[in-house]
């Protein structure tokens, strides 16, 4: 799922001088001299927030276009390791980030830029009267979640275990978006997803809080990809995400602050 946010850069006399060596000493974050494209590979749960960040980053740095590739985090790791042209990698968990680093594809030390918590997703009006994790095991409730290889699926298992709830899902979906769409369509009654996903879905679904004692906080790290030809622009994007502007954008999408 590639979304080309900004394509108009070519008109501005785009020279393939993508700042690989860029001998200029000025590494100030004003970055008016930067020009070109960067490819940001980001977890599917970041789709809406990163699209917004991409637009505001481009407004702040008119020379730089941001090209996003959103997919499940493990898929992104596979793509990067198979040579996909990524400059920045934003992961939905630390496990996949650690894997990328261990395999030698991280361009530096990753930085946590956001956190997210789990919520139970139900249909508007909560027709099955779900009030907490224990209700997922009620007879007549069709519960679905993500497969354990998907970070959200792994976290939902942890949350259920710490709440002492035993429930067999009807389906192990491949992404949080698939779980939400099945709740929207009415095929399933409840699922566990990120709070941000419920916020993004608006009035089509409703969230039920999971108490902090059994909730799992997901940590989102990002890093430059080793061998990027646009290290200056990649770092400038990362700094933008970590800046107070970037953080407040993420907060409007329901993310918890990085620390």
């Amino acid at each position, binding site marked *: 799922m590639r979304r080309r946010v900004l394509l108009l850069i070519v008109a501005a006399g785009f020279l393939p001088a993508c700042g690989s060596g860029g001998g200029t000493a000025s590494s100030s974050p004003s970055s008016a001299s930067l020009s070109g494209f960067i490819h940001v590979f980001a977890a599917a749960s970041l789709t809406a927030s990163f699209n917004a960040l991409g637009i505001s980053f481009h407004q702040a740095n008119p020379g730089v276009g941001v090209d996003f590739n959103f997919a499940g985090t*493990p898929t992104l790791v596979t793509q990067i390791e198979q040579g996909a042209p990524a400059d920045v990698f934003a992961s939905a968990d630390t496990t996949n980030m650690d894997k990328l680093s261990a395999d030698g594809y991280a361009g530096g030390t990753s930085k946590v830029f956001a956190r997210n918590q789990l919520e139970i997703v139900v249909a508007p009006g909560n027709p099955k009267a779900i009030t907490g994790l224990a209700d997922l095991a009620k007879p007549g409730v069709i519960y679905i979640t993500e*497969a354990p*290889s998907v970070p959200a699926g792994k976290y939902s298992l942890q949350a259920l275990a710490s709440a002492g709830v035993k429930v067999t899902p009807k389906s192990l979906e*491949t992404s949080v978006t698939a779980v939400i769409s099945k709740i929207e369509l009415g*095929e399933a009654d409840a699922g566990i997803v990120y709070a941000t996903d419920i916020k993004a879905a608006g009035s089509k679904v409703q969230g039920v809080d999971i108490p902090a004692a059994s909730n799992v906080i997901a940590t989102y790290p990002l890093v430059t990809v080793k061998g990027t030809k646009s290290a200056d622009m990649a770092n400038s994007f990362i700094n933008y995400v970590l800046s107070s502007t970037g953080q407040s954008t993420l907060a409007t999408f329901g993310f918890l602050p990085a620390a």
Partner: protein
Amino acid sequence: MRRERVPIVVLIPAAIGAAFFIVPLVGLIVRSPWHDAVAALTAPETVEALKLSLVASLSATAVGLILGVPLAWVYARAEFPGRDLLRALTTLPMVLPPVVGGIALLLAFGRRGLLGSWLDSTFGITLPFTTAGVVMAETFVAMPFLILTVEAGLRSMDRRYEEAARALGASRWRVFTRVTLPLIAPSLFAGAVLCWARALGEFGATITFAGNFPGVTQTMPLAVYLVLETNQEASFILSLVLLLISLVVLVGLRHRWLGSA
């Protein structure tokens, strides 16, 4: 059979075309962890997924034959307004992204779907998250291949044999089973095999309509996709198994049924 020298202008693109398919396969074979092959193949989830895949794809082919052959006959023999439109509609899944096909099936046969809500309230039948749902998703995507192949067979056959049998007093049913079906046997088999192969590899419509749960709706392509995210190399082995099964069937049947066609 006279051997013909292949002109160079044909040979070069033909070789590139063949390599385009063969090189990715070689990639899979080279990168597969063969020492782990036995463990990957005998893992209970693999066996379960493989069994489910075979059962579901064969069921989808059976449904395809029962419903698709009559439909092909109608397209080939009946004249009625809107036939071309109908044919286009029933073969749309060939070009529709399978995920969209899965959503369409949910809108029709899901718990809140056009027919599904009635099935649920009247009979208590819900199809999503069941093996029957897998068969439906696979049939939806694969049957068009059978319909088109059989229709082509019916159109190209020599209808004088049917007319002669009729003139000699055979009933329409007898003509169909004793004359028509044997004459179109090659296309019938080709259509069934294409349909089966497409059903075996089906992913998008299945995961969207039927979901993914081991032993119930997790077919091999779904298992491969999920294993890919945790153990990339094991997923190569699983893909090769699917591939090998299909290859054996395709080569075997082509030789047996289409060799002279």
